[in-house]
């Protein structure tokens, strides 16, 4: 079995009286793509925020490469090689692309002074890598001047810098067009090929099915299913499963809507 990069054990999280997560186990091995799916409010974003150290769990353990950690924080998570593209992209829109790429991880020399030229070089390299040279902007362009897809690109560039071990993508294709979506897919495959891991979150189950090696289905704060790709015949199976857990009694309207969707294909 491949090395286990990170493991969450019995993670619980409540916001006041809202129980976002009620005891979740999740692990990611080296080189695999894990697809995390679930309804709105299932707790997906909360879970990955805990992984990336932004949100502190109410209880539960976090293990990095088998060893339990304490004092888990966003900074420590990044140090451990976990990079996240958040649902809201987490960009500072009035700053340059360079400043966004190196946010919280400035390249500094003596006494915290920035290595400005080094940063520009690296940023240029990254942007070229994800295919950004075609535009008229430079590493000094203000992120606020970019389109939605381009901003997503900056967020991804930030994530791939430093050869992170695990990259978390929270609904990266939301509000992206086909062209832009294809680009994100490119990138995911590229990362997998280089032996790194990805945790991919999406509502479009077809997308997730296409890309993931393993699926984790969250339902109202609990893991409803963990399965390898080989165990699932098609995306439709997954969709049916999700409908069933969402409405055990069966909801005719929903079934029809989804049937219609399938029928159209």
């Amino acid at each position, binding site marked *: 079995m491949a090395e286990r990069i990170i493991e969450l054990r019995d993670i619980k999280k409540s916001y006041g009286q809202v129980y976002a997560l009620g005891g979740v186990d999740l692990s990611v091995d080296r080189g695999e793509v894990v697809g995390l799916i679930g309804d709105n409010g299932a707790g997906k974003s909360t879970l990955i925020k805990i992984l990336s150290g932004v949100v502190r769990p109410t209880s539960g353990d976090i293990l990095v490469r088998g060893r339990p950690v304490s004092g888990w924080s*966003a900074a420590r998570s990044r140090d451990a090689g976990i990079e996240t593209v958040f649902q809201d992209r*987490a960009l500072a*829109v009035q700053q340059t692309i360079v*400043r966004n790429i190196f*946010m919280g991880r400035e390249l500094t020399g003596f006494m915290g002074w920035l290595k400005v030229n080094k940063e520009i070089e690296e940023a240029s390299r990254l942007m070229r890598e994800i295919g950004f040279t*075609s535009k008229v902007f430079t590493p000094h362009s203000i992120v*606020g001047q970019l389109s939605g897809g381009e901003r997503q690109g900056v967020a991804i560039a930030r994530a791939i810098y430093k050869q992170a071990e695990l990259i978390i993508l929270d609904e990266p294709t939301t509000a992206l067009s086909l062209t832009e979506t294809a680009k994100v897919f490119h990138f995911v*495959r590229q990362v997998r090929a280089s032996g790194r891991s990805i945790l991919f979150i999406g509502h479009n189950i077809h997308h997730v099915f296409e890309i993931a090696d393993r699926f984790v289905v969250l339902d109202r704060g609990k893991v409803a299913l963990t399965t390898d790709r080989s165990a699932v015949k098609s995306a439709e199976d997954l969709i049916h499963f999700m409908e069933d857990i969402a409405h055990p009694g069966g909801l005719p309207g929903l079934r029809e809507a989804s049937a219609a969707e399938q029928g159209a294909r």
Partner: protein
Amino acid sequence: MSKAMEPDLQNPFGDVRAAVEGKEWRHPASHGLRGFVLDNRASLGTLAVFIVMMAVFMIANPTVFTTWYLYSSVLTTLPVALFVVVPLVFVVTCGEIDLSFPATMGFASWVFALVVQAGYDPFLGIAAAVLTGILLGFLVGSLVVYGGLSSLIATLGMNFLLRGLIQIINEGKSMALTGLANSPAYKIFSSQVYGVPVQIFWAIAFVVLSAMLYNRHRFGAQVKVVGDNPDSASQMGIDVKRVRVKVFVFVGIGAAIAGCFSVMINFTWWPTAGDGYLLPVLASVFVGGTPTWGGIGTVAGGAIGAVTVSFIQTGVVAAGLSGFYVQFFNGLIIILSLLGHKWNQARYR
């Protein structure tokens, strides 16, 4: 499949890319004058306002404005303002504001005066004052940041509270430090060199260092990011609260130095010391081209703003208008600067 796609990742838009082939990205600043102007348009705008204002004054009264004394007298008091304006640019960039600096100035310079009056070396006094400034900045910053309060009102409250403390303890008494004039500290910090007040050199050094801190240091980078999007900053592992507290501490340090310089100008500490700087310093920051919404700002602009504001009064009087016109011109310059900066402060969301 992934094999077939790999070349695309390297060159997904090969056709379009050809158009920009061979063009390497360069820093806008390296594009020569145009890049420089673009990069510094806020501070250049402030400079333009200043130059226009001075030109008007000079036309009104050329003789006075060619006298060095006029400038040297402004340069005596300007440093005091500069030491607070510059840290305030950091605070405003960070999305906060600090109205408690006048009381911090008063408090820190009080400590300075006490140390000096007790017969210790003024250097020790300055050290004690700066320490006080750090502590007060930390106190105010922690209250705002960890208390989760609106900095506009909380720091206003702290200004009252600290000034009240000074008043309660001193019952209004001022301190004359007549011995100060002969100390080496005075020579270094407050004398004149070839007719130029030395404090301006210290202030310029402070401004330059701060501008570098703002543009070329992790601290400045993090201040900007935190002011721009605190949520992102914390998601990226920046300790947002710590950065915020730090800017308040920076104001504390600046205010302490300003307070000491102010006392050294005329060898007296007043319990009201610092109070007169509230509005001019605030105005300087915004006249300088730092917008109120955080994320961006300009240290050089703030410094030029302070110079502009310092010259308004002087200019009005030197131009031969009665003192009653000073407030009017204060307002006019503020409004005109804001209108001017509108064009170079695009706000992105």
